[in-house]
Structures are given as C-alpha cells and as structure tokens.
C-alpha cells in the first residue's frame, strides 16, 4: 500500500486471476475477523444447545428449522449463529421473536408424549432406576394388593423427559419409554439387519 497526494494505491493479489492488481482508492476499510463470544460454551451447556466446531451456536436444522434449537423453547438469531450483516440479523431476530410468541401465546402447554411408563406387572420395586433418572422423576411407592404389600415406582409426568435411562437400567423390563419400547427398538434393529 502506498499513500500519495491523489489517494491510496493498494497492491493486492487476486486469487482468481493469480496476479497482482494495483487499485486506486480513497479509503481502505478492513473487515475484522468475527469470533464467537468466549462464554458461548458456558451458555451452550446451561441451555443444552449445541455449538459448531467454530464456537457459534448451531440451529436444529440448517434448512428446516433455521432459528430453532433442538431444545424446546430456545431460539437463536444474529451473530451468535454466524457472522452476518445487520439486516440478516434483524430478519432472523424477528423470526425468533415470532417463534417465541407462538409458545407464549398459549394458555396451556401440552406435556411431551414420549415419556416413561411403569409396567406394574414387571416392576418389583427394586429401585435400581431411581438414582440414575436425571430428573428425579421416579419415586418408590408401596401399595396393598390382595392383602400383600407391593412395591413399585411411580413416574411424575411433569418431570419425566423421556430420556429412557430408567428403561436401560431396569433388569426386568419394568419401565419403558413410549414409542421406544424394547420390542419396538428390537423391531427397528431387525428391520435394519434384514432378519425380521
């Protein structure tokens, strides 16, 4: 770069032409590199949302759900997502606000349908599944049945998120997650292996 009385002369290499060009300009404006915020990782872990390898937030699907996270009720917009222009950020922010409004405008929210269910006939109340449950959704209960004290677990439908940790812990098939019953998983495996 050379400054003279009639402006700037900038020598740059053009990667397409593979040649050096000399440009005459009045001003040289450099675009600084945009880096993700340092605390992005902490925020990501707190809200259970993923980051890209570069450290920006990652949407649920780049085409089908571009402002949602896979985690419900959390949306993204602007430079948290990736470097972008102000107008793009504003458009995305309006989209995110609209998505949030669809949740906030509801009087009641429906609970997740894919949660666990106890099979009283199989569960003997051994309580193995209680400690591993990440949401403390299970409690041990005792009840009378045919003059005998029976023990089983009870699942709190508002706390259970349907992760299935209980199902994979239980040695007696005493609990399962709806839509992911052991038979259903086995059937998926059979189909994938072509042995069904």
């Amino acid at each position, binding site marked *: 770069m050379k400054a003279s009385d009639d402006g700037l002369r900038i020598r740059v290499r053009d990667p397409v032409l593979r040649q050096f060009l000399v440009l005459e300009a009045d001003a040289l404006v450099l675009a600084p590199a945009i880096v993700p915020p340092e605390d992005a990782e902490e925020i990501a872990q707190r809200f259970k949302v993923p980051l890209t*390898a570069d450290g920006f937030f990652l949407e649920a699907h780049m085409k089908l759900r571009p402002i949602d996270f896979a985690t419900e009720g959390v949306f993204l917009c602007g430079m948290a997502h990736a470097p972008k222009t102000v107008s793009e950020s504003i458009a995305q922010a309006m989209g995110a606000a609209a998505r949030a409004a669809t949740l906030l405008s509801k009087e009641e929210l429906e609970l997740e349908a894919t949660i666990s269910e106890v099979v009283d006939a199989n569960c003997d109340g051994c309580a193995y599944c209680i400690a591993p449950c990440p949401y403390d959704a299970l409690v041990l209960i005792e009840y009378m049945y045919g003059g005998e004290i029976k023990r089983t677990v009870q699942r709190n439908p508002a706390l259970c998120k349907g*992760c*299935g*940790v209980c199902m994979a812990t239980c040695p007696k098939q005493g609990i399962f*997650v709806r839509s992911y019953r*052991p038979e259903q*998983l086995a059937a998926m*495996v059979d189909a994938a*292996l072509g042995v069904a």
Partner: protein
Amino acid sequence: MSEANGFEPKIIAFCCNWCSYAGADLAGTSRLQYPPNVRIVRVMCSGMVHPNLIIDTLTKGADGVILCGCHPGDCHYLDGNLTAQKRAEAIDLMLEDFGLEPERFRLEWISASEGPRFAQVMTEMVESIKGIGPSPYVRRSD
C-alpha cells in the same frame, strides 16, 4: 459372496436424537461419503440403550454395534451419556461372556456439528470389523 474377499459387515449405529443423529444428518447434507454398511437406529439418548439390546443385536445378525451420544456435558438429558459410559464397562464384560471380540462394540461421542467426524468414525468402525471378520453368531446365506 465369498467371505474371504468380499466380507461386507453389517453395523448398527444407535444414535441419540439430539447430537449424533443430527451429526449423521449433517454428514448427509454435506454429502460426505461413508461405507453403506452402517445402518442407523435413532434413540432419544445414548442412555436409553439397554446392554441387552446391544448384545441381542450382536447375536442376531450384526457384526458390530456402535453407540453414539452427545459429548460429556452436552447430553440433552443432563447426564444420560455418562450413564451409558458406565454401562459400557458392563457391556465389555458381557461381550467376553458371549465370546465376542471387544472391537465389536464401540461408544463414541459425536456432536451435531461433527458431520465429518461421524463419517470418519463410521469408516473406521467398518474397517476395524472387516479386519476381525464376521460375527461368530451370524449365519450368512450369501
């Protein structure tokens, strides 16, 4: 197909919905290539997969099983993946009891942004299973 030169293993990958399945999706949308021997079964969390399911899968036709979850700290259900990791030790012991090589089961953390890593892990798994050959439980008609 003769097994000596044309062994094509069948591998089942259990991928958690929130990270690894999205990682597989990214591998797809990025048009990355990986061997077609891997078939994916989506689960909600790596912590949902019962050790019995892994062993059943290996004794009824799969040559290898790979369980994929979110990186530690990223599990959508707080720490389901750490529970899966604790179980992996028990699974290793069960493999021994069933006379299966330890290489036939793998636990891997693959995040939603790691499409290339997904393709790489699957390629490695297929190579490793090709190296040890078909599962002793598999009766092949081909």
